[in-house]
């Protein structure tokens, strides 16, 4: 963690050059990368396998998991040109004394940065020392030095690897990493449509709710403490709140009719949702406990899927069918200054980027029986209304959700009536499946 003034200057220079290049490229080529470092020249990074210290029975499993997860996290970050394991020197430096940087900066590895360290399991504790060295700085190569000491469980190696990866990503990428973030989604693998949770990389999938009816639209609160979702049964459709800390439902007023598609305000104090309590489904806002209801829209036609601007909390994007097929709109959260964002087709499921600049949404630009093209994920720059298409010909995609760092988007991909959750970088590259069992739908990425 400690860095000399000299190293700080070097870091600042490095960051500045990355940001400068990113901005230049963004202007010159692809505006969508602005602010996320995607598209900037990638740092050539090597992750050495961590060295085992000690001889605990659990150590070899822990080491294997740690090395795999760290490498995957750094690859997934999207801002590194990773040195493949086959090109890396076949050594496991366990400390600064054991590393030979010239080995790493020379061909074929050609690393600019190298992460390395040691892992130990002792007396029920898992202890990891991790370093990040600048391979081309022979004078004071250390960029990061971290120590972790946590109770050893089957999940600890994975957890520490996420923490160390996030520290590296924060230092070299300028924004905190997402390796410790969570994804909430709907799965039917228990026999009912329930809310499930998984790590950002698809690991650790487990069921959260047990309501035995149809759960839809899970939305985690900004602090991660409460989960809002829609429960649909023969009594109607209602907003429910599950406490992640109490592991049970907490009260939220139930109303006859159809309330659905909840969305948290970034301060966690308000919820926007669609309600048919006045007849036509409109956007309403209530406090987080369901009181202080006020209606925001009043126009014939369905109004659904609200989402707050996470940067300001003062704007809402949503879907309205007021002119026929559903379109993306934005407005102030008091219902004023309504602007239509999409110019046709069938647009649904808006997701507002963490920096407030972009909307991701699902769009079938040519909609109707026999129309060409499909339903794909798009990203629109709110200020200019310019958009790019992120998915192409991979089936019907829907429900995009941004990662906390704004560099990734998860989405629902449906092929032949079967849905899975996929992840990709916010420029559409690096697409990979996170779920493989049952039908998984409506992913929602945690706020941090």
């Amino acid at each position, binding site marked *: 963690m400690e860095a000399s003034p000299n190293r700080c200057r070097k870091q600042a220079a490095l960051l500045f050059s990355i940001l400068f290049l990113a901005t230049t490229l963004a202007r010159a080529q692809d505006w969508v990368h602005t602010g996320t470092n995607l598209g900037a020249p990638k740092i050539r990074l090597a992750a050495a396998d961590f060295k085992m210290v000690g001889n605990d029975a659990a150590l070899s499993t822990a080491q294997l998991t740690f090395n795999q997860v760290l490498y995957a996290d750094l690859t997934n970050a999207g801002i590194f040109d990773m040195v493949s394991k086959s090109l890396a020197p076949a050594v496991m430096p366990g400390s600064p004394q054991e590393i030979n940087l010239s080995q790493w900066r020379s061909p074929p590895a050609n690393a600019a940065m190298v992460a390395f360290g040691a892992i130990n399991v002792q007396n029920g504790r898992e202890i990891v020392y991790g370093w990040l060295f600048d391979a081309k700085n022979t004078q004071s190569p250390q960029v990061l030095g971290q120590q972790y000491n946590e109770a050893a469980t089957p999940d600890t190696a994975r957890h520490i690897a996420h923490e160390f990866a996030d520290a590296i990503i924060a230092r070299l990428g300028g924004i905190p990493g997402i390796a410790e973030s969570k994804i909430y989604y709907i799965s039917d693998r228990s026999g009912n449509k329930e809310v499930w949770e998984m790590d950002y990389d698809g690991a650790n999938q487990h069921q959260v709710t047990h309501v035995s009816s149809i759960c839809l639209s899970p939305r985690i609160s900004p602090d991660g403490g409460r989960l809002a979702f829609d429960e649909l049964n023969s009594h109607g459709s209602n907003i429910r709140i599950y406490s992640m800390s109490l592991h049970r439902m907490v009260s939220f007023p139930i109303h006859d009719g159809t309330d659905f598609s909840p969305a948290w305000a970034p301060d966690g104090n308000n919820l926007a949702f*669609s309600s048919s309590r006045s007849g036509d489904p409109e956007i309403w806002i209530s406090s987080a406990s369901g009181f202080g209801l006020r209606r925001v829209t009043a126009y014939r036609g369905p109004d659904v899927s609200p989402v707050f601007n996470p940067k300001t909390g003062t704007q809402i994007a949503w879907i309205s069918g007021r002119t026929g097929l559903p379109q993306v709109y934005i407005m102030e959260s008091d219902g004023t200054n309504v602007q239509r964002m999409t110019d046709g087709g069938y647009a*649904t499921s808006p997701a507002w980027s963490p920096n407030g600049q972009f909307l991701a949404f699902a769009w079938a630009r040519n909609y109707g029986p026999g129309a060409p093209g499909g339903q794909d994920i798009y990203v629109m720059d709110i200020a200019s209304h310019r958009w790019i298409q992120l998915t192409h010909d991979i089936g019907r995609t829907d429900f995009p959700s941004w990662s906390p760092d704004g560099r990734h988007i998860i989405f629902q991909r449906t092929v032949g009536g079967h849905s899975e959750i996929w992840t990709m970088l916010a420029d559409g590259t690096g697409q990979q499946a996170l779920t493989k069992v049952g039908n998984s739908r409506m992913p929602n990425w945690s706020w941090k």
Partner: protein
Amino acid sequence: MKNYKKNSALASAALVAFLITTGCHHKEAAAPPPPPPPAETAPAPTANITVTPNSIAPGQSAVLNWTTTNATDVSIDGIGAVETSGTKTVSPTETATYHLVARGDGGSTDATATLTVTQPPPPPAAPQQLTEAEFEQNVKPIFFDYDAYSVRPDAQAVISQDASFLQSHPDAKILIAGYCDDRGSSEYNLALGQNRANAAKTALTQAGIDASRIRTISYGKEKQFCTEQNESCWQQNRRAQFSLDQ
């Protein structure tokens, strides 16, 4: 003396003529013109039978009351030989006719009384026993166009038939569920399904069904009637379905 008795019996019999048989009437009519010859022979028997009340519900009972004169042998069909006059409590399960035959030296005569057993409980019970299957057989769903929630002309005819059945079952509560086909987005389809249920409710209330009997919900595209990816299947799924709201 005998004549007097006979005449007074005939007079009282005439007063309650509603129960006298035609045979009796015939004798009564025949008797006055030639009084002497029959007076010589044994007098003909007379018979009268009443039931009070003359209409009961199943499980209730009524009292038979009969009187005869000049009879030595009296029987009632279904009951058998009885006293020449008497009462008996009866409790038939369905409408019964009590046929009394009185035989005496002067011949035989008969009388009848009918006890009606009403069946009122079944008719009121029928609407309460309206089953889900019966309801769905009579109250047909209506179907919608693609991404639309206005009631089509062909659906108006269905609504009229649905409404007339529902009007004849005023106690039945109605649940209208809106459904959508598999295309499009889940959340938007929840709203579309709600609007379809709302439109069906409006059409039913315009056809005379009290809105307080109706509840609406939307299943969006979360429950499908047909799972193939073709237009006939999608059409099956774009509907407002009526069911008995328990």
